[in-house]
């Protein structure tokens, strides 16, 4: 017996897609965005920014759901998301 069923509105639920942007030279590499992104799509890059920190990068930009959490937890105004066009 299937324990769960398909929610009635599955077809109608629209998952927003986002485009995340990183302002590399503002980042101080605290890792908050990486740790708390709900889709775990961010990771430290190997590059250094002007101040010598490793800013985040993503190899799966399509996973962004535009939740803005990275944007609001970032202490440095260094990352933000917008709705994907």
């Amino acid at each position, binding site marked *: 017996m299937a324990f769960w069923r398909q929610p009635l509105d599955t077809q109608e639920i629209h998952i927003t897609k986002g*485009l*995340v*942007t*990183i*302002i*590399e*030279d*503002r980042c*101080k*590499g*605290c*890792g*908050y965005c990486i*740790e*708390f992104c709900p889709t775990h799509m961010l990771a430290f890059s190997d590059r250094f920014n002007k*101040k010598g*920190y490793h800013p985040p*990068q*993503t190899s799966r*930009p399509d996973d962004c759901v535009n939740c803005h*959490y990275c*944007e*609001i*937890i*970032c*202490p*440095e*105004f*260094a990352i*933000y998301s917008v709705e994907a066009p």
Partner: protein
Amino acid sequence: MSANTQPGIDHQGAHPLDDLIRTDRIPHIWCPGCGTGTAFSSCLTAIKATGIPYNQFTMVSGIGCSGRAAGYIKIDSFHTTHGRAIPFASGIKMARPDLNVIVFSGDGDLFAIGGNHFIHAARRNMDMTVICVNNLIYGMTGGQVAATTPSKAKTTTTPFGNPDAPFNLPLMAYAAGASYVARWTILHVRDLTNAINEALLKKGFSFIEVLAPCPVNYGRRNKQKSLDTLRLYREKTIIRNGADPARADIDFGRGVILGTFIDRDRDTCDELYDATCRRNED
């Protein structure tokens, strides 16, 4: 896009809060992982969300790491002497009752050297919003014990652990007469932003305590990296709106209560002054 610009990497900078920050001063001075930046950013988002024109706000801060905020916000702001942010703010409010006055400062500034000012502004119900970044320590001066340092925590001046009990800030704000009292952490940044927004729109003295990591001076001596502190905020906090502020003391062993403790209406200082002292003027 210039040749070396990668998709998703913005070298110019067009952060949604750029219109409220002095971008020429960014990166700011706060250490990597310092929670002050998140609390500050949350405050700016809340200002934006009110829809009130920016020139109807002013920010006042005292001395300490978080006191630097007044220098980063792109509206009229005042960086005042140690502990005196609230008296400056009260003066502004009395002279320009139309302004929304925000005090953004730290626990040491607001509750140790400035403690008396806090009590009396709350008692008089000065119509302002006080945001206290509580990092449990004196960060800027090198990590000395503060009035908010939890029992047994190690600081430069309590190498065996703090023998004293910390201040329960929501209880003190409530007892002194504040109209609105809430506490959140920087991890709960959505709730924090909503609370600041509510507080900005609330008539009377509003107080919001923001728990924020100081990885450099508190974390390092208490074996907490900044991410550990955020995990502690996730695992050892209890969200309970309307909780009794007497139960709000900070003891991570037992769990720290977050939420809106108080939301009540009282006549403000300005209203009472008008009714009492200006009643014969017209």
